[in-house]
């Protein structure tokens, strides 16, 4: 892995992965400033898109902007880089970023969690509590049974920034409420570290200054065809 050389870089990142990204920054010694974007924007890809573009539009006098985001629906589609190179990982969302696609993929039927997701104000659990308050326990359970159809496990991603044992305890009530089994899943910050240091090879998408992110760059099958 290359060492961190450019001082002329800024990171725009999702707050959900703050703990993991901060660790990656410490371990790589890349002291780039980070603009955090609230995870709540994930609810709407268009809101997230507008916010990311607004952040990019505020940035001047840097050579490179690193987006610590997955594609998140089509939130990155049409983003335009200013007078800087724009780099982001070739992953559908930040779960994949933490799971490391070179070793394993996402498993269907698993609802992935890290403390970063859970601490988010609009997390699965908080939203469930709100629903109970609003509609009562019976109706809330009915709604969540429908919402979580197809999910059988809670996957607790071990990204090494927190104690999985404690997280198991903390999420026990969630698993019980939704009849899901708990499973620790090996995670990594390898991808995040490489995002900071490069080399920005096939695992990343690099947009030249002034260029926009094209839909074809985000499509898995186009990506495969062009590689």
């Amino acid at each position, binding site marked *: 892995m290359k060492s961190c050389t450019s001082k002329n870089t800024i990171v725009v990142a999702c707050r959900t992965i703050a703990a993991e990204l901060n660790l990656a920054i410490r371990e790589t010694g890349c002291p780039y400033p980070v603009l955090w974007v609230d995870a709540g924007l994930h*609810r709407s890809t268009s809101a997230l898109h507008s916010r990311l573009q607004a952040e990019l539009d505020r940035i001047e006098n840097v050579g490179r902007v690193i987006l610590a985001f997955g594609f998140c629906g089509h939130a990155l589609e049409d983003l335009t880089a200013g007078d800087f190179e724009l780099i982001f990982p070739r992953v*559908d969302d930040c779960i994949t970023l933490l799971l490391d696609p070179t070793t394993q993929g996402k498993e*269907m039927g698993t609802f992935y969690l890290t403390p970063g997701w859970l601490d988010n104000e609009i997390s699965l659990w908080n939203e469930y509590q709100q629903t109970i308050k609003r*509609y009562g326990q019976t109706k809330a359970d*009915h709604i969540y049974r429908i919402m979580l159809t197809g999910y059988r496990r809670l996957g607790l991603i071990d990204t090494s920034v927190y104690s999985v044992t404690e997280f198991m305890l903390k999420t026990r009530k969630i698993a019980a409420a939704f009849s899901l089994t708990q499973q620790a899943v090996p995670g990594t910050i390898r991808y995040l570290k490489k995002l900071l240091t490069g080399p920005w090879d096939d695992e990343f998408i690099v947009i030249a200054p002034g260029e926009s992110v094209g*839909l074809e760059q985000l499509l898995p099958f186009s990506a495969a065809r062009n590689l």
Partner: protein
Amino acid sequence: MSEQEILEQLAHTVVEGEEETAGVIAQQALDAGIDPGIAIVNGLAKGMETVGHYFESQRYFLPEVVLASLAFQAGVKVLQPHLKATAVKTGVVVLGTVQGDTHDIGKNLVAIMLGAAGFEVHDVGRDVPPEVFAAKVKETRANILGLSALMTTSMAGMKTVIDLLKKEGLREQVKIMIGGAPVSERYAHEIGADAYSVDAVSAVRLAQSLVS
């Protein structure tokens, strides 16, 4: 209550997600002699349209949408048996969530609403392999195929289905519409689908326009 008031009540029960009340008001609509088709389109579906707007503007979130769809379904259950059999079927739809994806709330809602609008709906479920879509299109002689995907990883599977239909010579008989959070109009165009729908209410209008 006047006909207009009953229709507004129907819409209101959907917006508020009142499953039990929706059935009661639907029965009132029938008792008042309101055409069940009108009760669905100008009552229940109007409510669903409002829910769609609320969801888009983030006033509503998924739990409210689920509740609304349950209320919609409860109303339709009362009204549907009384729908006059139309001489001409609106269309035959095969609908499902593509392989690798188990999200089906939106797809189920589209299925209910298309059924209420007079389409013959064959819901093939979730995590559906391309071969199953193709076989069902062939078997039912469907003129519309609806594909849903909620993940950036699974949306590529839509193109696999379309490619298989082409290979099997079925592509020409069927209009393909797609939907789901990560897809877009441009994506539909890119993969060779006919149309994209942003939500369940628009999906019904879109399906109607595709077969007209």
